[in-house]
């Protein structure tokens, strides 16, 4: 399969790994993000390594009123899209739980912004009867924990949104894939204590780029996180509420 892929939030390590993996499969790319100093660097690099066309532009998840025009620009520039990867996310600070002004930003970026751009993407792909939408959610969205429940709630909402979208677009032949990464070796996790079995962003990226060819609707990465989360989700609430997680 070829065609152009739009990466939303293209400057994170996972996004870079994903973009590289799609480019290695021959896809042209449109890299979208806020950091206009980093985007041209990443674009130039992927162009040189993989010989595909890479364009980039400013995209702000929180500025939802710009999303429709932004997507149209991308579609025009790339002469159509075959897929979209939603890779942006904002962890915020654990303090977000106490101070809602921070929590509001976490929700605005991870859920409201995501729902906004994805609704435009869905409207684009539905009549085409083809294409894929990959949303990078998080295992943090599977169960609320005291350490990051605002982030978790926003990602959990994103997972539900993707689930509904998958149901809606199934009959149109548009794939909607939910990706839930566990611990990945990125700036977000670097130096954190207590991490185990940390995956490289290149590995995660390669798995994401393969996902449209496979049948799984919900992809835990690396794969064993499905079972870790299965256990965590099944801890009875009377016990779970006592845990320091």
């Amino acid at each position, binding site marked *: 399969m070829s065609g152009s892929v739009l990466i939303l939030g293209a400057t994170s390590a996972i996004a870079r790994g994903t973009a590289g993996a799609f480019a290695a499969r021959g896809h042209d790319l449109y890299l979208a993000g806020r950091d206009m*100093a980093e985007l041209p660097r990443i674009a*130039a*690099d992927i162009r*040189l390594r993989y010989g595909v066309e890479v364009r980039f532009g400013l995209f702000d998840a929180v500025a939802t009123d710009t999303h429709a025009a932004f997507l149209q620009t991308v579609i025009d520039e790339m002469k159509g899209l075959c897929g979209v990867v939603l890779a942006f996310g904002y962890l915020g600070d654990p303090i977000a739980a106490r101070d809602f002004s921070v929590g509001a930003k976490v929700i605005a970026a991870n859920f409201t912004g995501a729902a906004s751009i994805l609704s435009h993407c869905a409207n684009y792909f539905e009549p085409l009867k083809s294409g894929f939408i990959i949303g990078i959610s998080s295992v943090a969205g599977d169960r609320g924990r005291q350490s990051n429940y605002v982030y978790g709630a926003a990602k959990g909402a994103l997972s539900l949104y993707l689930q509904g979208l998958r149901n809606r677009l199934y009959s149109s032949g548009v794939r909607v894939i939910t990706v839930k990464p566990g611990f990945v070796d990125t*700036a977000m996790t670097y*130096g954190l204590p207590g991490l185990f079995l940390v995956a490289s962003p290149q590995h995660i990226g390669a798995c994401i780029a393969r996902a449209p060819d496979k049948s799984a609707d919900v992809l835990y990465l690396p794969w064993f996180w499905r079972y870790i989360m299965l256990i965590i989700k099944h801890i009875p609430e009377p016990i779970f509420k006592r845990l320091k997680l």
Partner: protein
Amino acid sequence: MATLVTSISGWGRYPAQTCELERPERYADLRPNAPSVIARGQGRSYGDAALNENGRVLLTERVNRMLDFDTEQGILRAEAGTTLAEILPVIVAKGWFLPVTPGTKFVSLGGCVAADVHGKNHHHDGSFGEHVLALEMILADGSRVTCSPSESPELFWATVGGMGLTGIIGEVTLKLSPVTSAYMHVQNRAADNLEQLFALLQDEDKDDRYSVAWIDCLARGAQLGRGVAMFGHHADADYLPPSLGGPLNAKPGRTRAMPFNFPGWALNPLSIGAFNEFYFKREGKKENPFLSGYDAYFYPLDGITEWNRMYGKRGFVQYQCVIPDATAFEGIQSLLEELSASRRSSFLAVLKRLGEQGRGMLSFPLAGYTLALDLPIHDEEGLLGLLNRLDEIVLRHSGRVYLAKDARLSSRSFHSMYPRHDELMSIKNQIDPGNRFGSSMSRRLGIAGGRR
């Protein structure tokens, strides 16, 4: 930005020290964020050059984007964390090659500049810094400046070979070298002793763009310095059999990993002697020219990832020195005799002719012959005693020890070996008076005001 406090070491796994690691992912975050900082690329220097005990070590591995490649002129601009392994497939496909490459491709561009690395073609093409057209530096005050042989040349030549002590190397612009194929034309010649080996390396008729010699360090007496000289050049596309499937199309070889640390006794005079005998016979027989992919030719050890684990948990020291032409033969002979008398075996010993001294103030190469030895650490004290005796021989012959390989040179020896240190010092006083850029090595050797 979050940091990680942990114990790290160089490629020789000796010494290991506790450092605070920071790993930026954005170019804008490549800046000195602590009172004492040293940049570290792939950690392939052997000793303490990229260690900063109880200080900050700035990992450049994620700042590794190739930014611009002019395929007409053969000019590549890339971020300093980019490795030669990442660059090679991109440039070879377009008919270009690295102008200079060390014996591993798993090194960063920044590291190649900071150590001013050399390759088997030094006697023709000089060291890495000679081919760098420009650098973007991040200085102690966080400012970004461009330097080149014509723009701020003092900063440029202080940085080339400067072991990261002038600032953080951000971007490197490199002039590449044209090739018509991805293959090497190679020819080996055996020598029964050191005299023959020197004669081979000096012979202008036998010489080639690349030359290097392997020495059997366990051979003694009349056979002292026996070895195999290996000559090569980039094969011309017309020379290749069509079966190779396109001249620029060499596939890199398969890599295997060293699965565990060898026990300390695995490398002993007996096992090394057996290997050397086998290797001498096998390689010495290849007197007829043969073709080799560039990967197998330049990076034989890269096929085994983490080959340093062969030396066991205690690690190893690499000793590399150069002896100027005038007394090169006598100097190398004395070094080999000293090594042979110590009954210590070097698994790998390499002799290489070097060309004219470059312009980098702390650059290692000078016109003469360089000898590199890998020495496993069994008893630390005995080994360090031997190495100090080797230093004395090197000093007596006005030679020097390569800092990128070093873990134990004395400050006094360093200052005699690197007379242009004062020039670096005066640049450093202007651009980094607070001595923000420092490493365990700079403090050990007293480079550029570094002291404990």
